[in-house]
C-alpha cells in the first residue's frame, strides 16, 4: 500500500509539469502578481532535469504522462494548485511579514512550494514530511541540482546524508504511524509557533481512524494555526456515482484505496473532519465559477480548446479545498 500511495506523487508531479508546459501555470495574475512567485517554470523544469539523473524510472513515468494529459486535467491541476497557493498566501499575508510561522507539508511528495514561500517570507520555516522513499528521492534531486541547492541554501550532514537548510527541513515519517509522526514534529517544530498544515491529497488515502487521529493530535499539539487541505469527495446526491466509479477504477487499475471517499462525501461532511468550528470547504467548480476573473478565464481558454465543460464540472464538484483555523 505504501508504494501505491507514494506513486500518486508521480501523477501529481506530471500533472503539474503538463500544466506548466501548456502555460496554465504559473498564473500571471494569481501566482506571479498576487503570491509573488518567480521563476516558477524554471525551478520546476530544473527539478525534472535533476530527477532524470536521480531516477530514470520515475522520470520516464512522469515524462510520458506529461505528453498525454487532457485539457480537463490541466484545468483541474491549475485550479488545485492556484487555490492552495492563494489560500496559503492570503493566510501568510494576514499574519504580517514579520510574524514567525512554520509551514508543515504532510505528504509533500515532490511539491516545490517551499521555494517561493521561503523566498517571500523571511521569518517562515518550512518542513516537508513524507515516506522515507519519497524524502530520499526529493533530497537527492534537490542536492543534485546546483541551481536548487543554491536557491534553498542547502547543506548536507555527511554522516547521515540528510539534506537541510536553516529554515527548511525534510523529514521522513509514515503518517499512518501517529507516534512516530508526532515525535518527528516534536523534534523539528515549535509547539507555540503559528503553524500552517498542508495536506494535498493525503487524508484521502488514509483510513478513517488514522486520519482523524492525525488531525486531532496535530490540532491539539500546536497553539494556533490553519489547516489547508485538498481532497476528492465522493458525492452525496442519490444519483451521483462519481465517487463509487472512482473507487472502483483506482482499485482496479492501481490497487489504490480511498477509504473515506464515501464517508466524507460532501462539503459539510468533509468540514466535520476538523475539530474547529470554522472549517470552510469550497469545491473546485465553485472556485472556477466564482473566483477566476474574466481575464484569467480568457487566458485559460486561449491555451487549449476545453471540451467538455460538463465533464470539468462533474469532476471539479468532487474535489474540495478546505481551510480550518484554530487558536487556543
Amino acid at each position, binding site marked *: 500500500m505504501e508504494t501505491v500511495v507514494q506513486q500518486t506523487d508521480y*501523477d501529481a508531479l506530471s500533472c503539474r509539469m503538463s500544466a506548466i508546459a501548456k502555460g496554465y501555470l504559473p498564473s500571471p495574475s494569481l501566482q506571479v502578481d498576487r503570491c509573488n512567485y518567480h521563476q516558477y517554470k524554471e525551478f520546476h523544469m530544473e527539478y525534472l532535469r535533476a530527477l532524470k539523473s536521480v531516477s530514470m524510472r520515475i522520470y520516464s513515468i512522469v515524462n*510520458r504522462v506529461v505528453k498525454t494529459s487532457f485539457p480537463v486535467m490541466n484545468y483541474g491541476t491549475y485550479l488545485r494548485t492556484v487555490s492552495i497557493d492563494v489560500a496559503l498566501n492570503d493566510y501568510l499575508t494576514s499574519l504580517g511579514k514579520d510574524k514567525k510561522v512554520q509551514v508543515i507539508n504532510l505528504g509533500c511528495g515532490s511539491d516545490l512550494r517551499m521555494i517561493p514561500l521561503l523566498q517571500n517570507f523571511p521569518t517562515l520555516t518550512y518542513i516537508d514530511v513524507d515516506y522515507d522513499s519519497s524524502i530520499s528521492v526529493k533530497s537527492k534531486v534537490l542536492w543534485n541540482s546546483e541551481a536548487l541547492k543554491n536557491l534553498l541554501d542547502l547543506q548536507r550532514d555527511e554522516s547521515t546524508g540528510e539534506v537541510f537548510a536553516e529554515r527548511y527541513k525534510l523529514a521522513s515519517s509514515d503518517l499512518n504511524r501517529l507516534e512516530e509522526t508526532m515525535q518527528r514534529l516534536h523534534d523539528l517544530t515549535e509547539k507555540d509557533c503559528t503553524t500552517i498544515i498542508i495536506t494535498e491529497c493525503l487524508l484521502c488515502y488514509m483510513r478513517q481512524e488514522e486520519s482523524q487521529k492525525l488531525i486531532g493530535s496535530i490540532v491539539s499539539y500546536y497553539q494556533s494555526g490553519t489547516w489547508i487541505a485538498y481532497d476528492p469527495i465522493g458525492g452525496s446526491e442519490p444519483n451521483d456515482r462519481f465517487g463509487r466509479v472512482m473507487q472502483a*477504477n483506482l482499485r482496479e487499475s492501481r490497487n489504490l484505496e480511498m477509504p473515506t471517499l464515501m464517508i466524507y462525501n460532501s462539503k459539510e461532511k468533509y468540514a466535520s473532519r476538523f475539530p474547529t468550528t470554522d472549517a470552510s470547504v469550497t469545491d473546485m467548480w465553485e472556485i472556477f465559477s466564482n473566483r477566476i476573473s474574466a481575464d484569467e478565464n480568457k487566458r485559460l481558454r486561449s491555451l487549449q480548446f476545453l471540451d467538455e465543460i*460538463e465533464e470539468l464540472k462533474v469532476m471539479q464538484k468532487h474535489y474540495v479545498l478546505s481551510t480550518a483555523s484554530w487558536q487556543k
Partner: protein
Amino acid sequence: MNVDRIISLLRQAKHISEETVYTLCLRAQELLMNESNVTRVDTPVTICGDIHGQLHDLLTLFDKSGGLEKSRYIFLGDFVDRGFYSLESFLLLLCYKLRYPDRITLIRGNHETRQITKVYGFYDEVMRKYGNSNVWRYCCEVFDYLSLGAIVNGQVFCVHGGLSPDIGTIDEIRSIDRKQEVPHEGAMCDLLWSDPDEVDSWSLSPRGAGFLFGKNEVDQFLARNDVELIARAHQLVMEGYKEMFDGGLVTVWSAPNYCYRCGNIAAVLRIDDNLERQYTIFEAVQPQNGVGNPIIPTKKPQMDYFL
C-alpha cells in the same frame, strides 16, 4: 473486401490491417461524397448522441435499440476521442454505412477533425496501435465527407452542436462547402460547436468555439423552418437526455459512464411514424470477451484523477 467479416472482427475489437482500413475509408468516402449536407431520413429512426470510442457501449446501444436489421439510425457525431476504442467504433459505423447505406446516417461532430483528435486521444490511439499515423490520416479524410445534419420526415432537425447566427434556414446549410477541415469560426464551425443555454440571445461559448443560444433562437429556427424539434448531442447529460425550451430541443448523450469515470447513464431517442418520442436509457457494461471474461481496456499511462 468482406465487410461482414470486418464487422465481426471490429465487434471483438480485433486488429484491422492498415490496407483494409485504407480500402474501407476510400469506399466510405465515395459513398459519403454523394450525400447532401443535410440528409433526409424517414421514420421510424433511432437518434444517437456521442459515442467517444466506447465500443462496448456502442454494441450495447445497438442491442438495446433493435439493431440495424430492424431500425434506421442517425448518429450525431463524436464517434472518436476519449474512449479506448475510437478506431474500432468509427470503423464499425463506417462498415455498417457501407453494408446498409440507407439505414444509417453519420453526422460530423466537433471531434471529427484533425486538430481535435490530436489533442483528445484518437491520434495517440492510432499511433499506439499501428506505430504510424497513416490510419489516422485515412480516417480524417473520411471526416471531411460526413454530413453536417439530417432532417427526419421534414420535422426533426438533427445536428451535433446547435444553431449558428449565420444560419436562418436549413437550406442555407445545404450551400456550405463541407468537404474541408472544420474552420475555427463561421456557420460550419457553429453547427458542430454551439450549445443551448438559458440566454436571451447569441452569447460567447465558454468552449472557445461556437455560440450559446437560447429559447428565442430555437423558437425562431423552428418556426422559420417549420420543424418541431432540434435533436443534438455534444453535451454530457447525466440522465442520458434532456429536453429544453418546452420540448423544442433535446440533447441526447449515448456514452454511458463517460470516459469510464463520470458515472452518467446514456440514452437514444426513437422517433416513430407519428413523430412520437421514445427514449431508451442504458448503462455502461464491463467489456467482456467471447467467453465472458472482462477485457481490461488498453492500459492508459495515467488515470484521469487528481491524486
